[in-house]
């Protein structure tokens, strides 16, 4: 699978904070074991109850476009042949208050609108250097049947 911004484009560093989101192939968000607050990005203390019993819980794959921008000026040479590209902010239906950055893979920038329904898809990146396989959450418009 070719990534939205090209296979050579920057990948996320994988650590305890990012592993669940970028490798599980599911939408997994940090949640407090005690007060059930969703917390994104993850941290070491729950901002809801100040507890430190936190784990990653799975959300459903449906979301909504809260905002988006269309990038016309590449700020890195590797993106020169990718412009114009769009970056969206997507809210997760199952985790109120949690928003994710992503790209909408099945739509041109000028097809996007705030309020559109999307579902998660995953860009799989196997690591040539032998690191962990990444499954980067991305989005697809749910197109209305005509």
């Amino acid at each position: 699978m070719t990534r939205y911004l090209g296979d050579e484009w920057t990948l996320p560093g994988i650590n305890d904070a990012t592993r669940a989101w970028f490798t599980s192939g599911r939408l997994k968000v940090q949640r407090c074991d005690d007060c059930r607050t969703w917390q994104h990005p993850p941290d070491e203390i729950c901002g809801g109850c100040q507890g430190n019993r936190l784990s990653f819980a799975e959300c459903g794959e449906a979301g909504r476009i809260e905002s988006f921008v269309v990038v016309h000026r590449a700020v890195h040479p590797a993106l020169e042949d990718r412009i114009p590209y769009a970056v969206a902010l997507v809210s997760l239906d199952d985790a109120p208050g949690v928003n994710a950055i992503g790209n909408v893979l099945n739509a041109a920038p000028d097809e996007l609108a705030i309020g559109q329904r999307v579902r998660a898809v995953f860009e799989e990146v196997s690591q040539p250097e032998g690191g962990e396989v990444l499954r980067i959450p991305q989005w697809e418009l749910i197109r209305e049947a005509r």
Partner: protein
Amino acid sequence: MQGRAAVAGVGESVYYMRGKSPDSEFQLACTAIRNAVADAGLELTDIDGFVSYMDQRNDPLRLAHALGLKELRWAATTWAGGGNNAAGAVQIADAAVCAGYAKHVVAFRALAQGQFGRFGRPRGIGGRAEGDMAWKAPYGLLSPAQECALHTKRFMHDHAISQEALCDIALACYANAQRNPRAIRYGQPLTREKYHASRWIVEPFHLYDCCPENDGAAAIIVTSTERARDLLNTPVPIVAAAQGLGPKYGFSAFQGRWFPGMFYTSVGEAIWQRSGAKPADIDVLQLYENFTGPVMMTLCEMGFCAPEEVESFVADGALEGPDAKLPFNTAGGNIGEAYIHGFELVTEAVRQVRGESTCQVSDVSLSLVVAGPGYAPGSAVLFGVL
């Protein structure tokens, strides 16, 4: 606070386009500080404190030795962030002077991007994206312009705001810069047609919605209002200053609690509560425009108008020139004068109280600086008259 400390002097280096300064960043800093000291009628040996903000490379001990200080009683910087703490630095100087820890504190900012590389360049690319960038860079969200555009897009959608509102803010900065020979954009007027014809950087920001990047330095001297009375220039008292709560980093700012927002509501509340003033009392406003969209949002959060009113609030030249409904960024601001991370807004706010602006508003008694929107903690400082 409450006018007990005051700005006794202001100074700047020459402002240059990014990478064009013949002087190093440290030399620029020293020039601005020397100019501010001379403006106050002080000697360098009177200075006993330094405050700055951001990733300030010109550390206070190096400055103290270069400038021949006899004492260094106060050295401090704000936490992280960017231009959001341009006014927070003044607040720290104010606190030090009011507490009596130091007598003459310099607050300043210097940057030379030819020497140190561009501040606005995207970080976290080349290799893996770490920290805050891990959540953004893999998706191509890399620069402050793109992040602020994401907030602005939603705000415009929610409140039915057109592109003209952004244009009006850019036009005001350019128009005011035409009166200021120090301004980088002096002699380069902007028209509505030219604005709309300019290329997109990241929708909804055209080229002219974005401030340039510059080299230069600006500084002020904060001392007690009592001491300042005996110096060369009219003291400009610090009436109130504030920092405020906001999200942790850029990506946290996109979460439901904060999005869309510029994190200035609590800063505004503190300024109005501490000063007893209200937005309508402000005679002249300097508001950090990294980009035009955040200006519009911050005007609303500070209480100048409601989101539904902001398009008409900025329309028809309402921000332009000394006789504007709300005189704004009267030296040209980041967009028109120079991007010294907002410290050029602080020096301009002081000049307005002293009656020395190139776009002088008449009878200024309250002159407000609102620092960089979109990154936290935000900050603001209100200057008054004796």
